[in-house]
């Protein structure tokens, strides 16, 4: 039995062997580097601290910020929680209105919903059919009591890239803080925090060939952004996030981000070619729609709806392909993707969509094999589909009166 072809890099990435190797050197007994980085009284601690600071520099270098602006967290979910709750609580006296979008990751949306129970008001912007946030709509939503705008850089489901540079200009001009969830963009899209007027940015290691369970939050120092800490304790990370720093995890994230910076340009080219190959391979299938803008999109992502095919059957038929329908976190529920709904896809198309996400270890062979499988299975499923028959006969399904049994 062969393993499935992995095309689900947006859900998680395997740890790069170079990252794993570096991490292990901080776990072994004889390394002497297992110390608590906060232990000031012996070399076990000093070595660990040094490694942590090197990794901090590596992360900062990828996004061109000061290492002091990088706060370690347990992942992007925590970073999102810290950014949004941290700002909301610190600036509560200034205002209690937050603007975000309907297509954010659950870590942002659920955090906003939580704040709504504590008297905060949240405006959830609807993107256009291409997945892009309309800047005029954003501007119109701003109120005198708006304290935070949170818009993700790259969407995890459809891969579209928001214009965070423009959004930053708008928010900075109005003295509003701007948070960006960059979990899906770091290492894929150039990020220059010296130029971008972004105040807070969330990073995830496991989307970038690093380990799960570690992430970071960029917190701007010039101009100074203040946050109410969410994890209180020993005062780590300048009081912004307490808790013993997991040296091996941090070293892993640093290494992953170093590799990303060095290899991003080349890797993107290769991935773009593979994505184009995949797209070309399925474009000849009838009633196939790409979700999200094709231009302003990371090359790693291809989200496609196959009309007249039921989504779960499609996933099962494509057992030999590891892909996602809907984001990984919510794939336990049978709701159609809220992101696809938000960009105006009717439920049937949303249900029959698949997200293909390509990565560092994807080969041409993988793509060709995937294309073959898709052709095979789509034909088969459509053969079985009465809706497909009706479509082929020219019946406009929207005019059909369906009766209940």
């Amino acid at each position, binding site marked *: 039995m062969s393993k499935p072809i992995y095309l689900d890099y947006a859900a998680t990435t395997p740890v790069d062997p170079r990252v794993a190797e570096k991490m292990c050197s901080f776990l072994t007994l004889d390394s002497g580097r297992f110390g608590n980085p906060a232990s000031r009284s012996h070399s076990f601690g000093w070595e660990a601290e040094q490694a942590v600071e090197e990794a901090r520099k590596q992360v900062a270098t990828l996004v061109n910020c000061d290492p002091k602006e990088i706060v370690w967290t347990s992942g992007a979910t925590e970073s999102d929680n810290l950014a949004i709750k941290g700002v909301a609580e610190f600036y509560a006296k200034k205002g209690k209105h937050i603007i975000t979008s309907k297509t954010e990751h659950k870590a942002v949306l659920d955090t906003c919903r939580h704040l709504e129970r504590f008297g905060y008001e949240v405006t959830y912007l609807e993107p256009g059919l291409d997945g892009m946030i309309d800047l005029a709509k954003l501007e119109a939503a701003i109120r005198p009591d708006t304290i935070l705008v949170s818009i993700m850089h790259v969407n995890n489901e459809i891969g579209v890239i928001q214009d965070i540079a423009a959004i930053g200009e708008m928010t900075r001009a109005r003295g509003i803080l701007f948070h960006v969830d960059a979990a899906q963009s770091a290492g894929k899209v150039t990020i220059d925090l010296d130029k971008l007027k972004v105040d807070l940015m969330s990073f995830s290691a496991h989307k970038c060939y690093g380990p799960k369970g570690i992430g970071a939050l960029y917190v701007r120092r010039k101009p100074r952004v203040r946050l109410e800490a969410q994890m209180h304790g*020993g005062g780590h990370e300048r009081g912004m996030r307490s*808790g013993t720093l997991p040296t091996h995890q941090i070293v892993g994230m640093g290494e992953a981000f170093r590799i990303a910076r060095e290899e991003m340009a080349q890797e993107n080219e290769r991935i773009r070619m593979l994505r184009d190959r995949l797209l070309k391979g399925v474009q000849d299938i009838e009633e196939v729609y790409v979700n999200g803008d094709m231009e302003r999109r990371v090359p790693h992502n291809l989200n496609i709806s196959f009309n007249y095919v039921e989504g779960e059957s499609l996933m099962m038929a494509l057992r030999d392909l590891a892909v996602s329908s809907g984001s990984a976190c919510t794939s336990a529920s049978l709701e159609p993707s809220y992101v696809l709904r938000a960009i105006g896809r009717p439920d049937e198309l949303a249900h029959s969509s698949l997200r293909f996400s390509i990565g560092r270890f994807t080969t041409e062979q993988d793509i060709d094999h995937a294309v073959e499988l898709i052709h095979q299975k789509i034909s088969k499923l459509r053969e079985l589909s009465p809706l497909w028959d009706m479509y082929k006969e020219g019946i406009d399904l929207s005019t059909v009166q369906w009766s209940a049994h």
Partner: protein
Amino acid sequence: MIYLDHNATTPLDERVLEAMLPWLQGAGNSSSVHALGRAARAALERAREQVAALAGAHPSQVIFTSGGTEANNAALKGVTARLPAARLAVSAVEHASVQQPVAALARAGWTAATIPVTDQGEVTAQAVEAALRDGARLVSVMWANNETGVVNDIAAIAAVVRPAGAVLHTDAVQTLGKLPLDFTAAGAHLMSMSAHKLNGPKGVGALVVDKAVDLEPLLHGGGQEKGRRGGTENLAGIVGFGIAAELAATELQMRRTRMTALRQRLEQGLAVQVPQAVVFGGGASRLPNTVFLALPGMEGETLLLELDRQGIALSSGAACGSGYHEPSHVLRAMGVTADLARCAVRVSLGAGNTEHDVDTLIAALRMQAARLQAMAATAW
């Protein structure tokens, strides 16, 4: 280098590393990550069972976190978020990851009372009762102190907290793996644990929660841990925690016996060779591995650097606070003078330590004590 700072952190057990590696490396083959989807879930639940077993809890009560600090924050903030602001009480000797959330809660309308300790550092059930009479709805008392090693009778404390209708949280970070723990039998409502104190990896811990407790999640989003803690699971870390817990359960008695013997060797050696050494909390029930001591007249920081120079790693108390020069709040709560408290150094034994290590420490302390005496003799 002799490492005697196991309460700060412990080296990873080789067997734990072995168990973690497949999850850390993903075999370098990207398709195995997805194919392992169901295996991943199974490994996660197995680890949950292993941790629950060591803690004397039911697996469904275990929520994995990023560590002890998060568990403490989740417990205190989670409980108070679902109650109208009222009174809470914490012991005077808690770790910063309990004290600081409490301070934050105090800023949010809760009143925080401090439960005093005896001069040996113990939190008595009577002291807790007094706090309950004052109206405390939430009580937090650590199972064992990270600096002195003093162990509290959580069962006795739960026996007064529960009838009062209040909630009891206990920080068991330093106790797990060192002493038998039975969450269910003890009767606490919430219990915090951390993997890196028992030869497991850093960055992972757990909060054990009694079903009856209504808890607001600390981290929202993603729905992991049955909606109680959002965020992609740190599977390698969790698997490591599970194995570390299983090993601790199997070896608990052996570790306890071995540590106790080493600790006694140290204390007896000091009593004979360094009689001026003071052991804090010496009269109380303590963790088998911890000796919080002082050479009166010698600054703890100075002693530590001297010992580090001689290849012995200790600490002055909590690792977190080791950048500061404030005397230990634990000792101050025990009535120790600031001057003497500033002399404190903590010895915490663990895996890999030998009788030779203990003897080397005793010799080094004896030398330092002698130097101190000599300096005192010549001073005028």
